[in-house]
Protein backbone atom coordinates (compact mmCIF):
# COMPACT_ATOMS: atom_id res chain seq x y z
CA UNK A 1 0.00 0.00 0.00
CA UNK A 2 1.19 3.52 -0.74
CA UNK A 3 2.17 4.94 2.65
CA UNK A 4 5.04 6.72 4.34
CA UNK A 5 8.24 4.72 4.64
CA UNK A 6 11.10 6.01 6.79
CA UNK A 7 14.27 6.68 4.87
CA UNK A 8 17.15 9.07 4.32
CA UNK A 9 16.59 10.04 0.69
CA UNK A 10 16.90 13.66 -0.44
CA UNK A 11 13.10 13.98 -0.52
CA UNK A 12 12.78 12.67 3.04
CA UNK A 13 14.84 15.62 4.26
CA UNK A 14 12.69 18.28 2.61
CA UNK A 15 10.08 20.42 4.32
CA UNK A 16 6.59 19.08 3.47
CA UNK A 17 5.55 22.54 2.28
CA UNK A 18 8.19 22.63 -0.44
CA UNK A 19 7.18 19.13 -1.55
CA UNK A 20 3.54 20.23 -1.73
CA UNK A 21 4.60 23.27 -3.77
CA UNK A 22 6.43 21.03 -6.26
CA UNK A 23 3.31 18.85 -6.64
CA UNK A 24 1.08 21.86 -7.29
CA UNK A 25 3.58 23.35 -9.76
CA UNK A 26 3.97 20.03 -11.54
CA UNK A 27 0.23 19.48 -11.88
CA UNK A 28 -0.28 23.05 -13.14
CA UNK A 29 2.48 22.68 -15.73
CA UNK A 30 1.19 19.28 -16.87
CA UNK A 31 -2.37 20.58 -17.29
CA UNK A 32 -1.18 23.76 -19.08
CA UNK A 33 1.11 21.96 -21.54
CA UNK A 34 -0.32 18.58 -22.50
CA UNK A 35 1.81 18.27 -25.63
CA UNK A 36 4.10 15.34 -26.49
CA UNK A 37 7.20 17.50 -26.12
CA UNK A 38 6.23 18.97 -22.72
CA UNK A 39 5.20 15.56 -21.42
CA UNK A 40 8.58 14.15 -22.49
CA UNK A 41 10.32 16.85 -20.46
CA UNK A 42 8.02 16.17 -17.48
CA UNK A 43 8.71 12.44 -17.78
CA UNK A 44 12.42 13.11 -17.33
CA UNK A 45 11.53 15.29 -14.33
CA UNK A 46 9.39 12.49 -12.83
CA UNK A 47 12.31 10.08 -13.17
CA UNK A 48 14.53 12.58 -11.36
CA UNK A 49 11.95 13.14 -8.60
CA UNK A 50 11.44 9.39 -8.18
CA UNK A 51 15.20 8.99 -7.83
CA UNK A 52 15.31 11.80 -5.25
CA UNK A 53 12.61 9.96 -3.24
CA UNK A 54 14.06 6.47 -4.00
CA UNK A 55 10.65 5.51 -5.31
CA UNK A 56 10.32 2.20 -7.13
CA UNK A 57 8.35 3.01 -10.28
CA UNK A 58 7.05 -0.53 -11.02
CA UNK A 59 5.80 -0.96 -7.43
CA UNK A 60 4.21 2.50 -7.46
CA UNK A 61 2.49 1.88 -10.79
CA UNK A 62 0.94 -1.26 -9.30
CA UNK A 63 -0.52 0.92 -6.52
CA UNK A 64 -2.39 2.93 -9.13
CA UNK A 65 -3.99 -0.05 -10.88
CA UNK A 66 -7.41 1.26 -9.73
CA UNK A 67 -6.99 4.09 -12.24
CA UNK A 68 -5.96 1.79 -15.10
CA UNK A 69 -9.49 1.18 -16.50
CA UNK A 70 -10.05 4.94 -16.74
CA UNK A 71 -6.59 5.76 -18.07
CA UNK A 72 -6.64 3.01 -20.70
CA UNK A 73 -10.38 3.25 -21.36
CA UNK A 74 -10.46 6.95 -22.23
CA UNK A 75 -8.34 6.77 -25.42
CA UNK A 76 -9.84 3.41 -26.43
CA UNK A 77 -13.47 4.57 -26.06
CA UNK A 78 -12.87 7.98 -27.64
CA UNK A 79 -11.03 6.40 -30.59
CA UNK A 80 -13.88 4.01 -31.44
CA UNK A 81 -15.89 5.03 -34.49
CA UNK A 82 -19.22 3.68 -35.75
CA UNK A 83 -18.03 2.41 -39.08
CA UNK A 84 -14.72 2.07 -40.96
CA UNK A 85 -11.96 2.56 -39.98
CA UNK A 86 -13.51 1.61 -36.56
CA UNK A 87 -10.68 3.24 -34.65
CA UNK A 88 -9.53 6.84 -35.19
CA UNK A 89 -6.06 7.64 -33.93
CA UNK A 90 -6.74 11.37 -34.25
CA UNK A 91 -9.74 11.10 -31.87
CA UNK A 92 -7.76 9.06 -29.38
CA UNK A 93 -4.71 11.33 -29.25
CA UNK A 94 -6.01 13.95 -26.82
CA UNK A 95 -7.37 11.40 -24.29
CA UNK A 96 -4.15 9.37 -24.58
CA UNK A 97 -1.99 12.43 -23.80
CA UNK A 98 -4.37 13.36 -20.95
CA UNK A 99 -4.15 9.86 -19.49
CA UNK A 100 -0.37 9.95 -19.60
CA UNK A 101 -0.40 13.37 -17.92
CA UNK A 102 -2.53 11.95 -15.07
CA UNK A 103 -0.12 9.05 -14.66
CA UNK A 104 2.81 11.48 -14.25
CA UNK A 105 0.88 13.53 -11.64
CA UNK A 106 0.01 10.35 -9.73
CA UNK A 107 3.69 9.36 -9.62
CA UNK A 108 4.75 12.76 -8.28
CA UNK A 109 2.12 12.64 -5.54
CA UNK A 110 3.25 9.10 -4.67
CA UNK A 111 6.75 10.48 -4.03
CA UNK A 112 5.26 12.90 -1.46
CA UNK A 113 3.22 10.22 0.30
CA UNK A 114 6.18 7.83 0.43
CA UNK A 115 8.55 10.39 1.97
CA UNK A 116 6.40 12.50 4.34
CA UNK A 117 5.35 11.37 7.84
CA UNK A 118 1.85 12.19 9.07
CA UNK A 119 3.14 14.52 11.80
CA UNK A 120 4.93 16.67 9.23
CA UNK A 121 1.89 16.82 6.95
CA UNK A 122 -0.27 17.81 9.88
CA UNK A 123 2.16 20.52 10.97
CA UNK A 124 2.32 21.82 7.39
CA UNK A 125 -1.47 22.17 7.35
CA UNK A 126 -1.59 23.91 10.71
CA UNK A 127 1.19 26.31 9.82
CA UNK A 128 -0.13 27.08 6.33
CA UNK A 129 -3.88 27.50 6.94
CA UNK A 130 -4.36 30.40 9.36
CA UNK A 131 -6.52 30.51 12.47
CA UNK A 132 -8.93 27.94 13.84
CA UNK A 133 -9.69 26.53 10.38
CA UNK A 134 -6.06 25.42 10.16
CA UNK A 135 -6.15 23.93 13.66
CA UNK A 136 -9.35 22.03 12.86
CA UNK A 137 -7.94 20.68 9.59
CA UNK A 138 -4.63 19.67 11.19
CA UNK A 139 -6.24 17.85 14.12
CA UNK A 140 -8.81 16.27 11.81
CA UNK A 141 -6.17 14.96 9.42
CA UNK A 142 -4.23 13.40 12.30
CA UNK A 143 -7.43 11.76 13.63
CA UNK A 144 -8.35 10.36 10.21
CA UNK A 145 -4.91 8.74 9.90
CA UNK A 146 -5.27 7.34 13.43
CA UNK A 147 -8.81 6.00 13.15
CA UNK A 148 -8.85 4.66 9.58
CA UNK A 149 -7.33 1.25 10.48
CA UNK A 150 -9.52 1.06 13.61
CA UNK A 151 -12.75 1.66 11.68
CA UNK A 152 -11.64 -0.74 8.94
CA UNK A 153 -11.29 -3.44 11.58
CA UNK A 154 -14.76 -2.50 12.96
CA UNK A 155 -16.28 -2.93 9.51
CA UNK A 156 -14.50 -6.25 9.01
CA UNK A 157 -15.99 -7.47 12.30
CA UNK A 158 -19.45 -6.26 11.28
CA UNK A 159 -19.08 -8.11 7.98
CA UNK A 160 -17.83 -11.29 9.63
CA UNK A 161 -20.77 -11.13 12.04
CA UNK A 162 -23.19 -10.75 9.14
CA UNK A 163 -21.65 -13.74 7.33
CA UNK A 164 -21.76 -15.89 10.45
CA UNK A 165 -25.51 -15.21 10.78
CA UNK A 166 -26.16 -16.13 7.12
CA UNK A 167 -26.58 -12.45 6.28
CA UNK A 168 -25.14 -13.22 2.86
CA UNK A 169 -28.54 -14.75 1.97
CA UNK A 170 -30.19 -11.34 2.43
CA UNK A 171 -30.90 -8.94 -0.45
CA UNK A 172 -28.15 -6.47 -1.34
CA UNK A 173 -29.57 -3.35 0.31
CA UNK A 174 -30.12 -5.31 3.55
CA UNK A 175 -26.51 -6.53 3.51
CA UNK A 176 -25.26 -2.98 2.95
CA UNK A 177 -27.48 -1.77 5.79
CA UNK A 178 -26.22 -4.46 8.20
CA UNK A 179 -22.53 -3.78 7.57
CA UNK A 180 -22.89 0.00 7.51
CA UNK A 181 -24.99 0.06 10.70
CA UNK A 182 -22.41 -2.08 12.49
CA UNK A 183 -19.58 0.21 11.39
CA UNK A 184 -21.52 3.39 12.14
CA UNK A 185 -22.61 2.28 15.61
CA UNK A 186 -19.05 1.44 16.60
CA UNK A 187 -17.75 4.70 15.09
CA UNK A 188 -20.30 6.74 17.07
CA UNK A 189 -19.31 4.95 20.30
CA UNK A 190 -15.67 5.77 19.54
CA UNK A 191 -16.65 9.39 18.89
CA UNK A 192 -18.01 9.78 22.41
CA UNK A 193 -14.91 8.25 23.98
CA UNK A 194 -12.64 10.35 21.76
CA UNK A 195 -14.44 13.59 22.70
CA UNK A 196 -14.08 12.73 26.40
CA UNK A 197 -10.40 11.90 25.95
CA UNK A 198 -9.77 15.13 24.04
CA UNK A 199 -11.39 17.18 26.81
CA UNK A 200 -9.45 15.31 29.51
CA UNK A 201 -6.21 16.16 27.70
CA UNK A 202 -7.00 19.89 27.43
CA UNK A 203 -7.66 19.90 23.69
CA UNK A 204 -6.66 23.45 22.75
CA UNK A 205 -6.69 25.74 19.75
CA UNK A 206 -2.99 26.52 20.29
CA UNK A 207 -1.14 23.20 20.68
CA UNK A 208 2.62 22.71 20.51
CA UNK A 209 3.49 21.65 16.99
CA UNK A 210 6.56 19.86 15.67
CA UNK A 211 9.07 22.38 14.34
CA UNK A 212 9.11 22.87 10.60
CA UNK A 213 11.77 25.00 9.03
CA UNK A 214 12.54 25.68 5.40
CA UNK A 215 16.28 25.12 5.06
CA UNK A 216 18.91 25.31 2.39
CA UNK A 217 17.92 21.86 1.15
CA UNK A 218 14.51 23.24 0.22
CA UNK A 219 15.89 25.90 -2.14
CA UNK A 220 16.14 23.61 -5.20
CA UNK A 221 12.63 22.25 -4.53
CA UNK A 222 11.16 25.73 -4.14
CA UNK A 223 12.99 26.93 -7.26
CA UNK A 224 11.62 23.95 -9.20
CA UNK A 225 8.10 24.67 -7.92
CA UNK A 226 8.41 28.34 -8.95
CA UNK A 227 9.77 27.37 -12.38
CA UNK A 228 6.94 24.88 -12.97
CA UNK A 229 4.36 27.41 -11.83
CA UNK A 230 5.79 30.06 -14.17
CA UNK A 231 5.91 27.53 -17.03
CA UNK A 232 2.21 26.82 -16.47
CA UNK A 233 1.37 30.51 -16.94
CA UNK A 234 3.45 30.99 -20.10
Amino acid at each position, binding site marked *: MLTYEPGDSFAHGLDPRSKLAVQVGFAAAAFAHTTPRALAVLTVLVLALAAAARLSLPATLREFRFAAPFLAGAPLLEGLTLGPPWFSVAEATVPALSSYR*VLLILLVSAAY*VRTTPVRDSRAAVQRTVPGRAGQFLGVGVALVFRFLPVLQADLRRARDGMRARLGTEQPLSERIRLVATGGLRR*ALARTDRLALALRARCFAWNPTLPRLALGRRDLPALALAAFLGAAALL
Partner: protein
Amino acid sequence: MSTGTGSVDLVGDETVENVARTALFAALVGAFAYVSFPNPFSTAPITLQVLGVFLAGIMLGPVWGGASMVLYLLAGALGAPVFSGGSAGVGALLGPTGGYLWSYPIAAAVTGVIVHGGLALDDPRRAGLARLVGGMVAGTAIIYALGIAGLMVVLGMGPVTAFVQGAAAFIPAEAFKIAAAVGIVRSDAVAAE
Protein backbone atom coordinates in the same frame (compact mmCIF):
# COMPACT_ATOMS: atom_id res chain seq x y z
CA MET B 1 9.72 21.51 19.55
CA SER B 2 8.70 25.11 19.57
CA THR B 3 7.29 26.35 22.83
CA GLY B 4 4.55 28.92 23.17
CA THR B 5 4.29 31.25 26.13
CA GLY B 6 0.65 32.25 25.60
CA SER B 7 -2.10 30.76 27.75
CA VAL B 8 -3.89 27.63 26.60
CA ASP B 9 -6.94 28.42 24.47
CA LEU B 10 -9.24 25.48 25.22
CA VAL B 11 -11.72 24.25 22.65
CA GLY B 12 -15.34 24.52 23.83
CA ASP B 13 -17.14 21.30 24.83
CA GLU B 14 -19.66 21.35 22.02
CA THR B 15 -16.97 22.00 19.42
CA VAL B 16 -14.85 19.13 20.78
CA GLU B 17 -17.80 16.80 20.18
CA ASN B 18 -18.26 18.13 16.67
CA VAL B 19 -14.55 17.91 15.81
CA ALA B 20 -14.40 14.30 17.04
CA ARG B 21 -17.56 13.32 15.15
CA THR B 22 -16.44 15.10 11.98
CA ALA B 23 -13.02 13.43 11.96
CA LEU B 24 -14.47 9.99 12.70
CA PHE B 25 -16.98 10.34 9.86
CA ALA B 26 -14.17 11.32 7.49
CA ALA B 27 -12.29 8.18 8.57
CA LEU B 28 -15.49 6.12 8.24
CA VAL B 29 -15.94 7.20 4.61
CA GLY B 30 -12.33 6.14 4.05
CA ALA B 31 -13.01 2.76 5.68
CA PHE B 32 -16.19 2.38 3.59
CA ALA B 33 -13.99 2.63 0.48
CA TYR B 34 -12.63 -0.81 1.36
CA VAL B 35 -16.04 -2.49 1.74
CA SER B 36 -17.21 -3.78 -1.61
CA PHE B 37 -20.22 -5.77 -2.69
CA PRO B 38 -20.77 -7.43 -6.09
CA ASN B 39 -22.76 -5.15 -8.39
CA PRO B 40 -25.78 -6.88 -9.98
CA PHE B 41 -25.67 -4.44 -12.92
CA SER B 42 -21.98 -4.41 -13.77
CA THR B 43 -18.64 -6.06 -13.14
CA ALA B 44 -17.39 -3.00 -11.22
CA PRO B 45 -18.06 -3.68 -7.51
CA ILE B 46 -20.16 -1.38 -5.30
CA THR B 47 -18.21 0.41 -2.58
CA LEU B 48 -19.86 2.22 0.29
CA GLN B 49 -18.06 5.60 0.04
CA VAL B 50 -21.11 7.37 -1.33
CA LEU B 51 -23.24 5.91 1.48
CA GLY B 52 -20.76 7.53 3.87
CA VAL B 53 -21.22 10.88 2.10
CA PHE B 54 -25.03 10.60 2.49
CA LEU B 55 -24.73 9.62 6.16
CA ALA B 56 -22.34 12.52 6.85
CA GLY B 57 -24.90 14.98 5.50
CA ILE B 58 -27.78 13.29 7.33
CA MET B 59 -26.14 12.63 10.71
CA LEU B 60 -23.83 15.66 11.00
CA GLY B 61 -25.95 18.21 9.18
CA PRO B 62 -24.87 20.36 6.23
CA VAL B 63 -22.10 22.35 7.94
CA TRP B 64 -20.19 19.65 9.82
CA GLY B 65 -21.09 17.03 7.19
CA GLY B 66 -19.48 19.16 4.49
CA ALA B 67 -16.52 19.87 6.77
CA SER B 68 -15.99 16.16 7.37
CA MET B 69 -15.78 15.54 3.62
CA VAL B 70 -13.23 18.38 3.32
CA LEU B 71 -11.19 16.57 6.00
CA TYR B 72 -11.55 13.33 4.08
CA LEU B 73 -10.15 14.92 0.91
CA LEU B 74 -7.33 16.68 2.76
CA ALA B 75 -6.28 13.55 4.69
CA GLY B 76 -6.32 11.57 1.45
CA ALA B 77 -4.28 14.22 -0.35
CA LEU B 78 -1.70 14.12 2.44
CA GLY B 79 -1.34 10.35 2.22
CA ALA B 80 -4.09 8.59 4.20
CA PRO B 81 -5.15 5.61 2.02
CA VAL B 82 -8.83 6.62 2.04
CA PHE B 83 -9.66 6.87 -1.66
CA SER B 84 -11.05 4.00 -3.74
CA GLY B 85 -8.66 1.09 -4.01
CA GLY B 86 -6.72 2.35 -0.99
CA SER B 87 -5.05 5.08 -3.02
CA ALA B 88 -3.86 8.41 -1.67
CA GLY B 89 -2.07 11.58 -2.67
CA VAL B 90 -2.78 14.87 -4.40
CA GLY B 91 -2.68 12.97 -7.68
CA ALA B 92 -5.93 11.18 -6.83
CA LEU B 93 -7.72 14.55 -6.57
CA LEU B 94 -6.42 15.51 -10.03
CA GLY B 95 -6.86 12.03 -11.51
CA PRO B 96 -9.75 10.43 -13.39
CA THR B 97 -11.93 10.00 -10.29
CA GLY B 98 -11.06 13.50 -9.00
CA GLY B 99 -14.41 14.95 -10.06
CA TYR B 100 -16.30 12.49 -7.86
CA LEU B 101 -14.04 13.26 -4.90
CA TRP B 102 -14.40 17.04 -5.19
CA SER B 103 -18.17 16.62 -5.26
CA TYR B 104 -18.34 14.91 -1.85
CA PRO B 105 -18.30 18.05 0.33
CA ILE B 106 -20.94 19.69 -1.85
CA ALA B 107 -23.06 16.52 -1.99
CA ALA B 108 -22.90 16.03 1.81
CA ALA B 109 -23.84 19.67 2.42
CA VAL B 110 -26.74 19.62 -0.06
CA THR B 111 -28.05 16.30 1.31
CA GLY B 112 -27.86 17.82 4.79
CA VAL B 113 -29.67 21.02 3.80
CA ILE B 114 -32.53 19.09 2.18
CA VAL B 115 -32.90 16.51 4.97
CA HIS B 116 -32.68 19.06 7.79
CA GLY B 117 -34.56 21.76 5.93
CA GLY B 118 -31.84 24.35 6.51
CA LEU B 119 -28.42 24.75 8.06
CA ALA B 120 -29.50 23.82 11.60
CA LEU B 121 -29.12 20.20 12.76
CA ASP B 122 -32.40 18.43 13.48
CA ASP B 123 -33.15 14.82 14.44
CA PRO B 124 -32.92 13.05 11.06
CA ARG B 125 -35.43 10.40 12.25
CA ARG B 126 -38.06 13.11 12.18
CA ALA B 127 -37.38 13.94 8.53
CA GLY B 128 -40.02 12.49 6.18
CA LEU B 129 -39.18 9.75 3.70
CA ALA B 130 -39.53 12.19 0.80
CA ARG B 131 -36.99 14.53 2.34
CA LEU B 132 -34.50 11.73 3.06
CA VAL B 133 -34.72 10.20 -0.39
CA GLY B 134 -34.86 13.61 -2.08
CA GLY B 135 -31.71 14.73 -0.27
CA MET B 136 -29.82 11.63 -1.29
CA VAL B 137 -31.03 11.75 -4.89
CA ALA B 138 -29.82 15.35 -5.09
CA GLY B 139 -26.49 14.26 -3.59
CA THR B 140 -26.20 11.44 -6.14
CA ALA B 141 -26.93 13.86 -9.00
CA ILE B 142 -24.19 16.23 -7.80
CA ILE B 143 -21.65 13.42 -7.39
CA TYR B 144 -22.23 12.04 -10.89
CA ALA B 145 -22.48 15.45 -12.59
CA LEU B 146 -19.13 16.53 -11.16
CA GLY B 147 -17.67 13.04 -11.70
CA ILE B 148 -18.53 13.15 -15.39
CA ALA B 149 -17.26 16.74 -15.65
CA GLY B 150 -14.01 15.55 -14.01
CA LEU B 151 -13.58 12.76 -16.56
CA MET B 152 -14.14 15.24 -19.39
CA VAL B 153 -11.63 17.76 -18.04
CA VAL B 154 -8.95 15.34 -16.83
CA LEU B 155 -9.05 12.74 -19.58
CA GLY B 156 -10.35 14.87 -22.46
CA MET B 157 -13.37 12.59 -22.97
CA GLY B 158 -16.62 13.60 -24.67
CA PRO B 159 -19.81 13.78 -22.54
CA VAL B 160 -21.28 10.56 -23.94
CA THR B 161 -18.21 8.38 -23.41
CA ALA B 162 -17.70 9.95 -19.98
CA PHE B 163 -21.28 9.01 -19.05
CA VAL B 164 -20.87 5.48 -20.41
CA GLN B 165 -17.64 4.88 -18.56
CA GLY B 166 -18.21 6.87 -15.40
CA ALA B 167 -21.90 6.71 -14.54
CA ALA B 168 -24.06 4.28 -16.53
CA ALA B 169 -22.90 1.18 -14.65
CA PHE B 170 -22.86 2.82 -11.23
CA ILE B 171 -26.04 4.90 -10.96
CA PRO B 172 -28.49 1.93 -10.59
CA ALA B 173 -26.46 0.66 -7.63
CA GLU B 174 -26.99 3.98 -5.82
CA ALA B 175 -30.61 2.94 -5.24
CA PHE B 176 -29.37 0.16 -2.94
CA LYS B 177 -27.31 2.63 -0.93
CA ILE B 178 -30.22 5.06 -0.64
CA ALA B 179 -32.47 2.20 0.56
CA ALA B 180 -29.81 1.11 3.05
CA ALA B 181 -29.34 4.70 4.31
CA VAL B 182 -33.10 5.07 4.91
CA GLY B 183 -33.01 1.82 6.89
CA ILE B 184 -30.04 3.00 8.94
CA VAL B 185 -31.55 6.39 9.77
CA ARG B 186 -34.97 4.92 10.61
CA SER B 187 -33.54 2.14 12.81
CA ASP B 188 -33.01 2.52 16.52
CA ALA B 189 -29.61 0.89 16.23
CA VAL B 190 -27.98 4.24 15.62
CA ALA B 191 -29.15 6.83 18.10
CA ALA B 192 -29.13 10.04 16.12
CA GLU B 193 -28.09 13.12 18.04
